[in-house]
């Protein structure tokens, strides 16, 4: 388990490195198809911008009872004023058939940058949340989730 996490961590750090660096890293480190799809979706969201860690917190249970409904909460440190607020929060996943999970659009009328929902996770994987601020900066956080199956698989 610990070794798995170590393998995931460097990937994550590379993923959220500078935009220019991203392209270079893709050539150096062969990634799983699922990682590439996720990076592609993330690149669509951030285009050429740099993504930093911090300010945003992605809350997911580390061990999930059922991948059909995983509670997720995102909170971003922001006073949510007209001058400085979170504009968009996008969530990505690594191993579902599609890399996008949800995109939330907030604004100064939100008061607080905090959103909760329930998502589906097809397998144990990494989930990444990226927040776009009104000043154009991007911030991200990620979480690794272990998903177990129901013990008795039902045919009904």
């Amino acid at each position, binding site marked *: 388990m610990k070794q798995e996490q170590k393998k995931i961590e460097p990937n994550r750090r590379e993923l959220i490195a500078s935009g220019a660096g991203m392209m270079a890293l893709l050539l150096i480190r062969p990634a799983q198809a699922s990682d590439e799809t996720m990076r592609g979706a993330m690149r669509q969201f951030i285009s050429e911008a740099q993504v930093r860690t911090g300010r945003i917190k992605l809350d997911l249970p580390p061990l999930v009872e059922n991948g*059909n409904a995983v509670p997720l909460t995102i909170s971003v440190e922001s006073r949510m004023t007209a001058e400085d607020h979170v504009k968009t929060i996008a969530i990505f996943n690594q191993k*579902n058939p*599609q890399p996008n999970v949800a995109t939330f659009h907030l604004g100064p*009328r*939100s*008061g607080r940058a905090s*959103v909760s*929902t*329930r998502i*589906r996770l097809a397998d144990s994987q990494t989930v990444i949340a990226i927040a776009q601020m009104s000043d154009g900066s991007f911030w991200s956080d990620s979480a690794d989730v272990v998903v177990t199956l129901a013990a008795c698989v039902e045919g009904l």
Partner: protein
Amino acid sequence: MARALINVPAKAKRGDIVEIKALIAHPMETGYRHDTKGEPIPRDIIKSFVCSYNGEDVFRAELFPALAANPFIAFSIVASESGVLTFSWTDDHDQTEVRTAPITVE
């Protein structure tokens, strides 16, 4: 009409940040499942959710098949004035389900 549950405080003080919870009945069929005959079950999900406050959008969400069935979203807004909150869910067929809730701001 799909069942929906909205939790909005009826009253709030001006400037208060209030939490809103919205839950709607919908299978959120991913499009990746197959029926017992092996035929793919077509995708059918709610793809967007909007909350507007006296006519102005204050929260929007784009949803993908990775959202769990019977989608639940909790978010917050600033109680700025009395009025009506409108919640709309739009599905893949561009059908929209709408609910409203009044809010009194003192």
